[in-house]
């Protein structure tokens, strides 16, 4: 077996040194009654070529290949990934290392994560960011737990109906047994969180209000107004960015008054890979630094006064504080955070806003074209970024099925999550959708109305 280096002779020498007769004797600490009396029943092993063949078969059974046009978003976005990223993270010094517990031989990971933390602070407009969390939804749930820790005695959370439905479900899972009340805040007619409802629901018992920016329906929430309301009650405003590219075009949540900003970093250089791994991020205000979950990298000096980086403020964490830790998290999304940092470094101050404007222009073009189609409408007029809702003349499922025959994935059916939106379809546009694709989608939709 090519991964196992031992020769029979080496095994014999090692057993002799240990003082046992054979490999089975090494397991004498396991009582006979605990042993498996048979071999495992698994497929016979595959050599490398057969393995590649098997996996290629599975991959090919996923039938929507790159010849399809996709307008799917909803929390994962089809952006172009610069070739540089995969080359750099294929440096095995990065991807075969573990958590940088020994800083003197982990400066590569540590500096890269320190830079990631800085980039997330700059992007979100907040003071302190951690080294990453699993994904957008679990980061959002961790933000809620943090808000509860920071507001002892407050057991109520206001969750906007515009927040990504899966994020809402994950929050519900995380607080399932914590004696917390979740209150849903409705949306107004423009597709944003209803400010009057927020004002009516806020009181001193509310630990946090959670909204999306953009929200699931594509609307850029009125964060400044929401922050004004929440701060009257010292409630924390938690903002979740499932498409953080929007932050290169729209004002940052931090400057608008958000207290905790979380999100999904997949848009920044990570492949779609059927929904994971992505990478969650989280940034907070300075005053809440010690309540942060997850790893943090900090700058320090070595014995010769050279700059270096270490994991720090570990007294928040499970391996020191055990049941009193700020979170149970241990592994994060290390290499994915490095991918995000590489992406942001490549695009940078000039490229990222340019890309965001590009996405916005394409989405605007498509939205106007669809709105002009007979039978179709756009129900919301809130500011949006690269994703928006359309109402179709027939059930969305029928439209989607018909467009699939043209190799078009036209969007996400909203019937399960927002049944009150009549025949709603969530359509996403990125730089990967050129004008020819947009026009084809419009023509295909139109074909259905005739």
């Amino acid at each position, binding site marked *: 077996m090519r*991964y*196992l280096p*031992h020769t029979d002779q080496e095994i014999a020498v090692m057993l002799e*040194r240990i003082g046992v007769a054979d490999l089975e004797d*090494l397991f004498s600490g396991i009582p006979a009654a*605990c*042993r498996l009396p048979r071999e*495992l029943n698994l497929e016979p*092993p595959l050599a490398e070529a057969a*393995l590649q063949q098997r*996996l290629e078969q*599975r*991959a090919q*059974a996923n*039938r929507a290949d*790159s010849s399809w046009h996709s307008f799917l978003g909803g*929390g994962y976005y089809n952006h172009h990934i*610069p070739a540089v990223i*995969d080359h750099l993270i294929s440096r*095995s*010094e*990065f*991807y075969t*290392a573990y*958590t940088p*517990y020994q800083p003197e*031989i*982990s400066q*590569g*990971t540590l*500096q*890269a994560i*320190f*830079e990631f933390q800085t980039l997330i602070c700059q992007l979100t407009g907040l003071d302190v960011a951690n080294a990453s969390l*699993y*994904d957008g939804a679990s980061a959002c749930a961790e933000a809620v737990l943090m808000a509860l820790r920071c507001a002892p005695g407050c057991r109520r959370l206001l969750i906007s109906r515009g927040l990504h439905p*899966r994020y809402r479900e994950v929050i*519900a899972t995380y607080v399932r047994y914590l*004696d917390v009340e979740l209150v849903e805040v409705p949306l107004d007619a423009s597709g944003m969180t209803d400010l009057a409802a927020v004002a009516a629901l806020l009181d001193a018992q509310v630990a946090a209000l959670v909204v999306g920016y953009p929200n699931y329906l594509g609307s850029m929430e009125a964060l400044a107004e929401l922050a004004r309301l929440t701060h009257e009650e010292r409630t924390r405003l938690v903002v979740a960015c499932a498409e953080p590219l929007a932050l290169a075009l729209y004002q940052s949540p931090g400057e608008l008054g958000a207290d905790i900003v979380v999100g999904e970093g997949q848009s920044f250089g990570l492949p779609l*890979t*059927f929904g994971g*791994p*992505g990478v969650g991020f989280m940034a907070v205000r300075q005053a809440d*630094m010690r309540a942060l979950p997850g*790893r943090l990298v900090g700058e*320090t000096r070595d014995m010769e006064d050279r700059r270096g980086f270490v994991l720090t403020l*570990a007294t928040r964490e499970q391996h020191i504080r055990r049941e009193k830790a700020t*979170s*149970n998290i241990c592994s994060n999304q290390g290499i994915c955070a490095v991918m995000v940092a*590489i992406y942001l470094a*490549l695009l*940078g*101050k*000039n490229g990222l*806003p340019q*890309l965001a*404007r590009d996405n916005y*222009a394409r989405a605007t073009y498509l939205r106007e074209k669809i709105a002009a189609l007979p039978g179709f409408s756009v129900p919301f007029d809130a500011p949006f970024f690269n994703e928006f809702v359309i109402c179709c003349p027939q059930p969305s499922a029928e439209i989607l099925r018909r467009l*699939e025959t043209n190799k078009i*994935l036209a969007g996400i059916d909203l019937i399960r999550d927002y049944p009150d939106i009549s025949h709603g379809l969530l359509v996403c546009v990125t730089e990967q959708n050129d004008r020819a694709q947009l026009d084809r989608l419009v023509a295909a939709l139109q074909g259905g109305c005739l």
Partner: protein
Amino acid sequence: MSALDSKGLILDEQLLFERSVAGRCGYDLAPLDVPPAAPPANLVRAPIEGFPELSEIDVVRHYTRLSTWNYGVDSGFYPLGSCTMKYNPKVNEQLARLPGFSQQHPAIPEHLSQGSLQLMYELQQALCEISGFPALTLQPSAGAQGEFAGMLMIHAWHQAQGNRRHKVLIPDTAHGTNPASAALCGYQVVPIASDGVLSVAAVAAAMDEDVAALMVTNPNTLGLFEAHIREICTLVHERGGLVYCDGANLNALLGVCRPADLGIDVMHFNLHKTFATPHGGGGPGAGPVGVSAALEPFLPLPVVVQEQGVYRLDCDRPLSIGRLRTFASQFGILVRAYAYVLTMGAAGLKKATQLAVLNANYIRARLEAAYHLPYPQRSLHEVVFSDAHLPNNCHTLDVAKRLLDYGYHPPTIYFPLVVQGALMIEPTETESRQVLDEFCDAMLAIAEEAEHHPELLHQAPVNARTRRLDETLAARKPRLKWQP
């Protein structure tokens, strides 16, 4: 002073932000082929303060240089105890990047994603066979989230029985994630002392009507098999509780022993440990959870199911604890683990376990005269020494830092907490006898140095990228981002 402080080919590198030059960009966008548009001006953001401006080669050099300051399994021996730093097969990296997987959006209709769903289903079946559990979720993002899912299911099961129990028993050898995960489910943690292994009496004394579960790690963090586990499971079950097993150390048991057969009700796997997926400098991992039939209705959403050769994600499960992440799984990690299982087969997995245990015991045999071994029982895949016999004020941290000078990643240090000054060594099966001998020679040389030249330990490392770093300073005056 020059901007870069390289010494010959030991290359220095500034922060991204310090290399930035106004006007550079490492990305070209195609010309806009639709009319330009912009949102209302009052909503538009000013240029992002401090964001880097770099060309492609700046970025490539930056990360290439940073990589040279790192040490991975491909660089050399990485005996980090409890982390199972085995070799990460290269073909698995290639397979996870197949366009049919990597370009697949999670919201794609199920009839167009049968390949991925089948792969998940088959991995699920294989992990069930390996562990003995009848049902399993691939959803949890890492071990700690798997623990959380498992404890939520235990809580939900008790609730469905009409019980409300408040306590969870956790041995003092457990990983910190265990008590943290239990607390997240609203449980009060009751530590129980173990003397190497857990005794039936210790569990019996703590096990009352208010205990929801016992969380154990088997083999435990001392590398010892919990020899009384069957009796302990029976006892906990008789008193109405369930048993959770932390599967971090499953690499010691493949094909030898199946946790479900011992009476365990729930266990998480760490695919990034046992199943050779890379650790990525801290993640991503994946933490599938196997459960007994009684707990199956509570599995998190969605569950991959197969009916007449058609695969789908089942979300219609009213007793489920709910969802743990945005989309179904860390799919890219599952592809690698699936490839690993297919490559190894039953005999290969068992051989891997045998050789992992052989390697740990070989290191133990070579080092036990020089380093104090606090628990003399037969250990499995890892061995825990302590610094109790080291002279001249030399401690575990000094040994760890001196190992850097010899070109090794140190073992896990100061864990488990029950051993003062612990040095926890897990070699894994992918290391050859040569490598182990070289490492043991270094460890023996360090023990000699502690005797005759303790300053070499106290000053270490001298051959690493940096000298010893001031962690106290980092914590006292936190600088967590670059500032101009």
